[in-house]
């Protein structure tokens, strides 16, 4: 069935919603700033990169700005990584965290904390988390590969096994440290958080996510072909083993990048791709852009809720993605064609 809303219109509406949600979210907090003031501060700052003149400008530009950018790209990255992983394993209930990548990130971060302690610089933990995710991804890939092919079921089984193993290692390291501070930090990686976002990391994450999204969108037809299985793909001239290897690597890098800066935020990678399919159908040329925008929107909303729900205490965002996401999903399921979700 063609989408009820024409695709360009839907994409435009989603992009507009993200563009509107960002200044709104930046404006909300202990020091409220009206959205038009947010836009003015950002425009000033972009035209003349002078240090912030007012407390509001400082809050908007230095504290909440990078955080909002990180929310946008984390959401987009997780949603697209989820869509890609689902196509890879031919199962719409797969999730990027299923492949052991986030467990690897947590283990990497905790290892770095154990080694460097409080002396760790601002880039050490994300760096270690990314290295952990990449190592876990490489291990899963190599263990799941048999005779040059990456079979979906093996990929999931090996991913779950490696993830459990790393989860155990993380728990062990945390117990050994036994300091409340370390446990707090681990909670950050396990549930995810955008607190403490700063420009360098947010921009690095944005650049990496944008590049990977472009690469994956260019391969949308390959994802479609892979949904038919290795033989169906071969009939269309797509070499499944090679395509799966490339797409797995891209999804792993995407997940690793996002988890390294924001922790293992759940729900988005699993549900947003399905939400996108309900709205635009199964073709990945539409699913990927729609999922990216929906993921961004959902994470900006979840972050807003994380900051404001129990003010002044901040909640880990991972607790709220489901709270924010379920209404989206229910609305889409109710409004969608009958026959989906049977």
């Amino acid at each position, binding site marked *: *069935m063609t989408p009820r809303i024409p695709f360009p219109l839907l994409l435009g509406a989603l992009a507009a919603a993200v563009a509107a949600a960002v200044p709104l979210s930046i404006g909300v907090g202990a020091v409220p700033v009206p959205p038009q003031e947010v836009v003015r501060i950002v425009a000033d700052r972009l035209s003349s990169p002078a240090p912030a003149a007012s407390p509001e400008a400082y809050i908007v530009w230095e504290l909440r700005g990078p955080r909002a950018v990180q929310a946008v790209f984390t959401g987009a990255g997780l949603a697209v990584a989820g869509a890609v992983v689902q196509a890879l394993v031919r*199962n719409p209930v797969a999730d990027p965290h299923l492949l052991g990548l986030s467990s690897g990130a947590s283990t990497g971060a905790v290892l770095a904390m154990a080694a460097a302690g409080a002396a760790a610089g601002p880039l050490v933990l994300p760096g270690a988390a990314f290295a952990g995710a990449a190592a876990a991804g490489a291990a899963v890939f190599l263990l799941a590969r048999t005779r040059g092919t990456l079979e979906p079921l093996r990929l999931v089984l090996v991913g779950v096994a490696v993830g459990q193993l790393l989860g155990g290692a993380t728990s062990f390291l945390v117990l050994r440290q036994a300091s409340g501070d370390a446990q707090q930090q681990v909670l950050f990686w396990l549930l995810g958080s955008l607190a403490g976002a700063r420009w360098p990391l947010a921009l690095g994450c944005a650049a990496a996510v944008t590049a990977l999204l472009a690469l994956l969108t260019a*391969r*949308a037809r390959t994802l479609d072909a892979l*949904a038919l299985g290795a*033989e169906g793909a*071969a009939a269309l001239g797509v070499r499944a083993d090679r395509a799966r290897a490339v797409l797995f690597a891209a999804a792993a890098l995407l997940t690793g990048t996002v988890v390294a800066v924001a922790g293992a935020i759940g729900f988005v990678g699993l549900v947003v791709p399905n939400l996108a399919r309900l709205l635009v159908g199964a073709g990945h040329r539409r699913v990927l852009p729609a999922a990216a925008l929906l993921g961004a929107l959902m994470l900006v909303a979840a972050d807003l809720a994380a900051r404001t729900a129990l003010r002044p205490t901040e909640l880990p965002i991972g607790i709220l993605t489901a709270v924010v996401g379920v209404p989206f999903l229910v609305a889409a399921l109710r409004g969608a064609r009958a026959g989906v979700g049977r």
Partner: protein
Amino acid sequence: MRLRIRGLTAGWTRVPTVDGVDADVPEGGLTALVGPNGSGKSTLLKTVYRALRPRAGRRLLGEEDLLGLDRREAARRVGVLGQDQGGGFDFTAEEAVALGRVPHTGPFGGLGAADREAVAEALERTGCAAFADRPLSRLSGGERQRVLLARALAQRPRLLVLDEPTNHLDPRHQFAVLELVAGLGTTVLAALHTLDLAAAYADRVVALRAGRVAAAGTPAEVFAPEPLRAVFGLEGTLLADPVTGRPRLLTRPAGAPAAPGGSGTPGRAAHAPRR
């Protein structure tokens, strides 16, 4: 375009499933590949559409060796209706058919005017245009099979490979799919389980047994009593359909007792006229 298979050996384990097969698929006709379960039909077809690499042998499409073509080139020449086309993703009929253009589209996969025309034509020829917007999950088995055929046609192939195209279809749709395929004018190689349908629609039949060619020729030749017994362990009678004149095959278990009043000579084939 005609296909010649020479000395083809292939399989997944050490024991080859297809062992030294020579077969010809003449241009423009329907060649049926028949044989008991496990005789190597699917394996043979998979080597033709390059889902499986043969250990030895050549597959010549026209004068070109398929091995010398890159995958996309090969997929532009050979269209496939395979057995497993599922996956958990609910494409619409049109999206599913548009996948047939994957080997023709550029690196970004955008559909050009020629691609859209090929998709529309394939939907039209297979009678799928009416439900092009419907998701595959809401189509009947017969409709879905036509969509998969439309995808293979959208590839604009010179050779159409069909692996059990009548599987899971009711009799009316079995006939409908084969009528459609036989009327295309494209060279077709189809694995068929139902011998009667092979007799009725094939111009040429290749019978496999244990990975080797056990018989090949016209339906009248391959479905003669001797090859039928050797390949399938069946007795059979080839008749001419009283209405269409096409060959039809009646099969019965080997050694089935003749009823009083029966001819008592199982396996004596009527000489069926060629189409």
